[in-house]
């Protein structure tokens, strides 16, 4: 008796032996055909000098907030501004955030917040999660988080607020760049491209943020001015 696997593969092989019909002319597009001479998968790539502005514009348009911290004191001020108004409760850190700012736990504690170890139950009571972004996509205002750093998946998903730390050298243009980065050396168990807050429009198309994931996302650019004070650990 053959297995379902063999049956399915056999049916596929017999199906593929049936010659295909000649390709029909596609229906005319609703979009006026535009000449495009570049790589259609990458699309139009603007001057890299404008990528930061493009990223910020898209991230903000999706409901995110962009901050910049070029020194440790500026970082403390940004953290205080974001975490200060939040209700009582701890903050959870992904390992990538600790690598980014080695004394981040201390800085959070100085703001009067406890730091919760990453676990679903702890993350569920945390008021904010902090991770780093491995890559930042200007094309869509997107950040890449992966499971290569312990705690990053939970910290970027379960608390209602997500803080993302990143640096200028992580800025890339588009989707193909992100996929190349993910696939190199074999993909991680989990990688996530995050574009704005969790959202839905399932009830009468009314946009609501924070359905299951964070309703509020903040991106903090570190070292953009090149002072070196917020150096990576």
């Amino acid at each position: 008796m053959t297995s379902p696997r063999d049956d399915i593969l056999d049916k596929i092989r017999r199906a593929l032996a049936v010659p295909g019909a000649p390709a029909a002319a596609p229906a005319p597009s609703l979009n006026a055909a535009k000449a495009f001479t570049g790589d259609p998968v990458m699309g139009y790539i603007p001057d890299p000098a404008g990528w930061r502005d493009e990223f910020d514009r898209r991230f903000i348009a999706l409901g995110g907030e962009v901050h910049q911290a070029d020194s440790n004191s500026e970082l403390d001020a940004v953290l205080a501004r974001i975490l200060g108004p939040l209700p009582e409760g701890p903050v959870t850190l992904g390992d990538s955030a600790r690598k980014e700012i080695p004394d981040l736990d201390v800085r959070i504690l100085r703001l009067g917040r406890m730091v919760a170890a990453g676990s679903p139950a702890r993350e569920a009571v945390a008021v904010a999660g902090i991770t780093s972004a491995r890559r930042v996509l200007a094309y869509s205002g997107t950040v890449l988080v992966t499971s290569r750093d312990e705690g990053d998946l939970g910290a970027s998903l379960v608390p209602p607020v997500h803080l993302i730390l990143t640096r200028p050298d992580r800025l890339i243009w588009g989707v193909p760049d992100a996929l190349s980065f993910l696939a190199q050396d074999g993909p991680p168990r989990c990688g996530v491209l995050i574009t704005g807050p969790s959202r839905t429009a399932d009830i009468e198309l009314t946009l609501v943020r924070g359905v299951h994931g964070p309703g509020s996302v903040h991106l903090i650019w570190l070292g953009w001015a090149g002072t070196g004070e917020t150096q990576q650990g």
Partner: protein
Amino acid sequence: MPPAADFNQTVRRFLSDPTLQTALGRALGSFKGMRTRAVAELPEFEALRIRARDAKNKVLGRLDEYLTRLENNVRDRGGTVYWASTGDDAVDYIRRLAADKKLGRVVKGKSMVSEEIHLNQALEADGLEVYETDLGEYIIQLLGQRPSHIIGPAIHKTKEEIGRLFASKLGIPYTDVPEEMTRAVRKELRARFLAADLGITGANFAVAETGTLVLLENEGNIRMSTTLPPVHVAVMGIEKLVADWTDLAPLLRILPLSAVGQRLPSYVSFLTGPGRVRDEGPREFHLVLVDSFRSTVLADPLFRQMLRCLRCGACLNYCPVYRHLGGHGYPWVYSGPMGVALTAAAFGPQAARDISGASTLCQACGSVCPVMIDLPGLILEARKRAAMDEPGIGRLVDGMARILATPHGYDVFSRLAASGAMAVLSADGRVKRGPQRLWDLGRDRCLPRPAFEPFHRSPLDEESE
């Protein structure tokens, strides 16, 4: 597939439902607007459609090889692969898995394949608690209905109807404020996510090269379902493959653009096998590959292009028939133009006879399809096959073809047809006598009275000679 209801009655019922008509008009208008604005910003969009089509054709042309490659890579990463010849096989596997491992609390991400194979009903019959976790799907589950749109399952419901539903089923005070309703669902489902022992999702793509599943969403419920429970089962049609990460790029770009005009949705998850350490995700990962009708469709030289379909919903949004009927007017869980073509391909042309006959063949669906499926052509073909199935029609069409092939035959036939049409039509073009089917055809429209003199015999024609 459920038994066909009386199509004409169904159409009349939906057309005379003002709430449905308002909801559909508003939703589809919004979806189209978002897509149009996003596409207008991208000069490469048409070239991207070609790349997306070619990427799917490449994998479908050697589907057996890519499927085995995917299987090997999923297994190498510690996952389990199950091949399901039918929907029932897939359901049975998941039921057995749940029973063997004593998994009783299920959280589900939106999956059209699971709708197709009626997975929820089977698991609930076994006593499992099953929670749909996409907000729209959750509403649909509470209503006991099927989704009315691929990406907007509850677009046919008003906020007042949903408010009453939540008050009755969740025991919360009535509210029709979407933010408050969403907060209530977040609270309700958060507890379910944390307690769940099985997460079930579909997959938008599977990368054969590495055994990676790719899932797109906006809410975060799929991330929850694939991260928190200790066991993750992904149910996927065998056509959802891409060869490698290079081919994934055009598809990943074009799917959210076509669906709702997003450059990327809130979350795109790339999952490769089960987790290896704490917080990396489920300890077990099972991939259920569902054939069902797919290998049969692959054997059809014309309809095999349906296996390129990304389930983006763009063809639904642009279809004037779907705009007035909504998804529940279609015979199967797949609706709109792609649903008509897929129904005909999977169950035979008779299954889609009425709904393919309702198509206006306006071509809008084919124009927006991100993988360039010739949907108008397939719907026309479904119509043709359904007609040719009827007794005597084949001989009639052959005979007509012979008559019309000669100038004399054409002339005589057109004069007879004109006389016949004038006999059944009144001066204002309404049907005044004839068989029932003709009455049905003329009920809501005035038909043009034909000229007795055929066009090719008209004075204009003679002058030009």
